[in-house]
């Protein structure tokens, strides 16, 4: 039984939810996430999220402005990796290059910048954005798209960058948004996608 504790005191909405969701993703089966928040609406949002993910939850008021929310993932929880309850509508965007399409690089560059920017403006967001090979260059320090990826992450999008690729390009310690991923996770996300987009 794994227990992950999160101190979300002082964090503005929706950060407590994002962090808790992230922690829950790291639990395979049988584990709980305990999140301490300092306001009632954050607490309610956490409970709502647990309900959407069909997970058991309970809360306790520890003292004034201190609430403890415990969300438990038992055996057989299925919505583990889904971003929300739309588990039958998983949209995955797989980016395999830092350019969009084939042709002249200068144009491909501009198109990719436009693609990610536009993604932040859509009201339908993907569940996951996968970045591999040249795509891994987009989520590291000094990438012109960093802000946009951070915006997406704030919207609850899972940003996964291929670790092998970061290593190959010598960017191992430069990842600045989302998480490092491996081929198993990449495969899982691709296979689990109901809609796959490759710009």
């Amino acid at each position, binding site marked *: 039984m794994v227990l992950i504790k999160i101190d979300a005191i002082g964090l503005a909405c929706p950060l407590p939810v994002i962090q808790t969701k992230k922690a829950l993703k790291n639990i395979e089966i049988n584990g709980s996430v305990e999140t301490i928040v300092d306001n009632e609406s954050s607490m309610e949002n956490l409970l709502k999220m647990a309900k959407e993910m069909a997970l058991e939850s309970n809360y306790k008021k520890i003292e004034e402005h201190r609430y403890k929310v415990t969300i438990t993932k038992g055996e057989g929880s299925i919505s583990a990796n889904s971003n929300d309850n739309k588990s039958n509508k998983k949209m995955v965007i797989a980016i395999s290059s830092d350019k969009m399409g084939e042709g002249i690089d200068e144009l491909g560059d*501009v198109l990719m*910048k*436009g693609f990610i*920017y*536009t993604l932040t*403006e859509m009201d339908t967001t993907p569940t996951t954005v996968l970045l591999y090979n040249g795509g891994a260059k987009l989520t590291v320090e000094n990438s*012109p798209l960093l802000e946009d990826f951070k915006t997406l992450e704030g919207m609850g999008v899972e940003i996964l960058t291929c670790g092998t690729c970061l290593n190959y390009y010598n960017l191992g310690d430069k990842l600045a948004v989302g998480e490092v991923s491996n081929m198993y996770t990449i495969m899982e996300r691709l296979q689990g996608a109901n809609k796959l987009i490759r710009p």
Partner: protein
Amino acid sequence: MKKIEEFNLISFESTHMAIKSEKLLKEVDLDIRIIPVPREITSSCGLSLRINPLDYNEAIKILVKNMIKFSGCYLIKKTGFKKEVLDINT
């Protein structure tokens, strides 16, 4: 708790002009970025420059000096996903 942003936008007659403008203005470190033309604006090549209002005058000066043709100048106010477009062509 909707995010409110305000920025200037210049649209271009050609993609090449847009890319050239981005380069010119990046060279002098202005706060700009190239973005697709928002749906609210119809004409032009599909690329535009998003400019921090603080850098707008300087940007225009440089573009005019380099004889860049643009097709429109706008002020955009974004509230959440909603955009308000003000045409400031003179």
